[in-house]
């Protein structure tokens, strides 16, 4: 399967830069997935979870609060304001990441209904890791 280059950039620096098989993004019009060779698109992202399928088929989840994605044929650049990666070596690491992710969710205002979905997704992502 083809891969593409994925970059996730926050004001605090690069948090992900690697080849990926696919990525699922929380667009304003709903979730959408991107595979290699996707046509160019620029769109806004809402608060939600970005699922990255890495080359080893492991899925990594990153929570974001707002962002912009710029897709072209070989590269996907995701610009986000705030992001927390749900990952960790041990159970406690994952729990800690989940904690800070929840804090980020709380800080997102005026999207009442969406928060519940996002929280549920977070739990799911964490469950998979444990």
């Amino acid at each position, binding site marked *: 399967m083809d891969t593409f280059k994925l970059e996730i950039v926050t004001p*605090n620096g690069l948090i992900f830069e690697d080849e990926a098989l696919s990525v699922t993004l929380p667009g304003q019009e709903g979730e959408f997935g991107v595979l290699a060779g996707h046509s160019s698109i*620029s*769109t806004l992202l809402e608060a939600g979870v970005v699922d990255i399928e890495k080359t080893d088929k492991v899925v990594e989840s990153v929570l974001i609060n707002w962002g912009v994605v710029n897709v072209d044929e070989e590269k996907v*650049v995701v610009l986000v304001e705030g992001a927390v990666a749900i990952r960790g070596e041990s159970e406690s690491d994952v729990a800690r990441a989940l904690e800070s992710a929840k804090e980020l969710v709380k800080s997102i205002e005026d999207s009442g209904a969406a928060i519940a979905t996002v929280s549920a997704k977070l739990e799911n992502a964490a469950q998979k890791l444990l």
Partner: protein
Amino acid sequence: MANLKDIQRKIKSVSNTQKTTRAMKLVSTAKLRRAEELAKRSRLYSDKLNQVIAEIAGRIKCHKVGGIDNRCFIDIDNPKTVDIIFVTADKGLCGGFNIQTIKAVNKLLAEYKEKNVKVRLSGVGKKGIEFFKYNETELFESVVGLSSKPDKKASDEFILNSIEDFKDGKIDAVHIVYNGYKNMITQELHVNKILPVDTEQFECGEAEKSSMLEIEAQDEEMMLDSLVNRYVEYSMYYSLIDSVAAEHSARMQAMDAATNNAKEMVKSLNVEFNKARQAAITTELIEIISGVESMK
């Protein structure tokens, strides 16, 4: 012949100054490290954001996508009113750091004056504000304290007026002038035109023509609007961060130079002091010898 006491006093005062400048240098070095770290991390985001904006602007220019007539992406040929925002430091003692920015602002002001364009000048940083107040140039908005401690919220509020006025058509361009950080010893002056998004550098090449812009959101205008807001806000914030890093590096250098100068001065004063001391001894000896001679 200078008095021995006088020279001694001078030496003491110069070495005291040297102590002060050295301390200031150390403080700046420490602060620079932190500011530099922050600037470096933000630079990547800022670069990427600029890239995305430029790409969108370029595609809009090359394709005239979907009849988008967002003001932010269209070159305005005959501006009537423009906003100039400058960022200087709140404190002095940093060499030519502030004056360079002020000079660039003055140059821009003169250019616009020639074209009979009305300019609204806004500024961050005490030094620049003081300068323009002294010269009786009216400031539209001014903030003190933001340039030494950049704060995203405060900077967003500061720039908000300009964004809205631009969208309402009250102003036709927004420039940000600031002195940015290049490396430990150089600062780089930036005169950035942030609104409308600069599309001149964007050539409509083959690559741009082949890749279509597709904007997912139903409301294209809204997406562009919100993106432009973020872009301008972040540009403003980034200028502040970059400016702080540059300020500290400029001050570090200025204070280093001052410390070296003080060192030189103490050296030459010491030589002068020794000469004066020797002269005094010689005079005393001559006096004694001539006294002895006259007793014979």
